[in-house]
């Protein structure tokens, strides 16, 4: 489960073939993306268990295959938007569905949070505590991929995973405690999206790259500030 977090950036690429097929069929691209993300999550989970390969290897195979397949299937005029985000304006229905999915993710996280914490620390201890670590891994993968789906609309398949990785990296610069870590990660993520989209709108930039650039800037800023304060221990 821990290594799934490290492979987070790559997981978002699994959406590309779904996007491409949906565009070819004339249905909403995010429907296709959701299907391939969910299938990809289950496939990664099954391959890990059947092959004994570690998560990063399995994700590496699945995401590169997805990227290649998506590149072949996605119409060329839509490929840039699929990779970097920025399809046509958000409809009311899309907004409501995204909001609903976000609420569902938050409820699921609240319910599963303690099991994730125990399994993240040690899957062996989680098993000895009576938890089903295989089920925990699968649920985590599904929640993870649905989180990627929420951001896919405006970040694209290449960059959606960045908002999982970078805010956490920023938060880790500032704290070693769980609750502040989660709070700071969420704030950095929200701030990056808000500021990045404002920049994109005002300067006519691509949304996805602008958002991720802001998040990366926050990481660089943290390094510089923490570097100046390096004599102080991380709280």
């Amino acid at each position: 489960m821990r290594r799934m977090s490290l492979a987070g950036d790559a997981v978002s690429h699994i959406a590309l073939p779904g996007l491409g097929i949906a565009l070819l069929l004339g249905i909403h691209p995010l429907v296709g993306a959701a299907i391939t993300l969910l299938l990809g999550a289950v496939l990664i989970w099954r391959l890990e268990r059947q092959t004994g390969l570690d998560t990063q290897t399995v994700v590496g195979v699945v995401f590169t295959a997805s990227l290649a397949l998506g590149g072949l299937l996605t119409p060329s005029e839509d490929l840039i938007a699929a990779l970097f985000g920025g399809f046509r304006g958000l409809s009311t229905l899309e907004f409501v569905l995204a909001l609903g999915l976000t609420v569902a993710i938050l409820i699921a996280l609240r319910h599963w949070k303690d099991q994730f914490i125990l399994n993240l620390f040690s899957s062996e201890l989680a098993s000895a505590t009576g938890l089903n670590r295989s089920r925990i891994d699968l649920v985590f993968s599904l929640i993870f991929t649905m989180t990627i789906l929420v951001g896919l609309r405006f970040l694209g398949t290449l960059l959606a995973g960045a908002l999982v990785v970078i805010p956490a990296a920023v938060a880790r610069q500032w704290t070693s405690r769980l609750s502040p870590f989660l709070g700071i990660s969420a704030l950095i993520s929200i701030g990056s999206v808000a500021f990045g989209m404002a920049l994109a709108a005002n300067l006519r930039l691509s949304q996805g790259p602008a958002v991720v650039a802001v998040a990366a800037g926050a990481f660089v800023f943290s390094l510089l500030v923490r570097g100046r304060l390096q004599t102080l221990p991380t709280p």
Partner: protein
Amino acid sequence: MKPLLTVKDLTVVLDGKTVVSSLSFQLERGDNLAIIGPNGSGKTVLVRALLGIVPHRGQIVWVPGAKLGYVPQKIDADRHLPLSFGDLLQAKERVLHLPPTEVRSVSEIIGLSKEVLETPVGRLSGGQFQKALIAYALLGSPDVLIMDEPTASLDQLTEERVYELMRRLQEKLGLSFIVVSHDLSMVYRYANKVLCLNQQGLCFGPPHEVLTPQALQALYGEHHQLYQHHHLP
């Protein structure tokens, strides 16, 4: 009274290799069992089989309602993980729907300070980490604590403290222990039964009866002896 644990013809095969073969033994409530054997003899696999973590053939029958606590040999904890043992203990408390005072109660019994509970796991010393793992295992009021080399990588003084803690826990809480150990002197001091394991069970019983030079030679394949020091009061 039913035995605490009955193991009959236990065999564990992993990746086509027989790791534990036709093992049988029985434990009563209050027993302290030490499992000894050379590296690769199947001790950790046996522990995992007792916990139900690995598949096995044969019988492992715990007394109905027995609750197990487990302290593993090593945990591949990421030093940079933003988690403290306070977070872990509270997570286990919620997962098992334990009373909210359980964490404080167990921390007091073990002697874990608030500071240690709030320190990220990667920053704890070996002794603090081990005590915190024991606290984690005690949550949920187990009847049996299963510990896999609990003092590996600890200095001698800390090792003594951990074994003393185990003795106090047994006196205070009436726990039974199953401990994998390489330290024969500690086995002799703290265990009332010992199981010699080298894929098969080579000896089982009170240490002073079964830890003979012949048994140790059969187990380890070298000349081993246990010297007992008798000090005048």
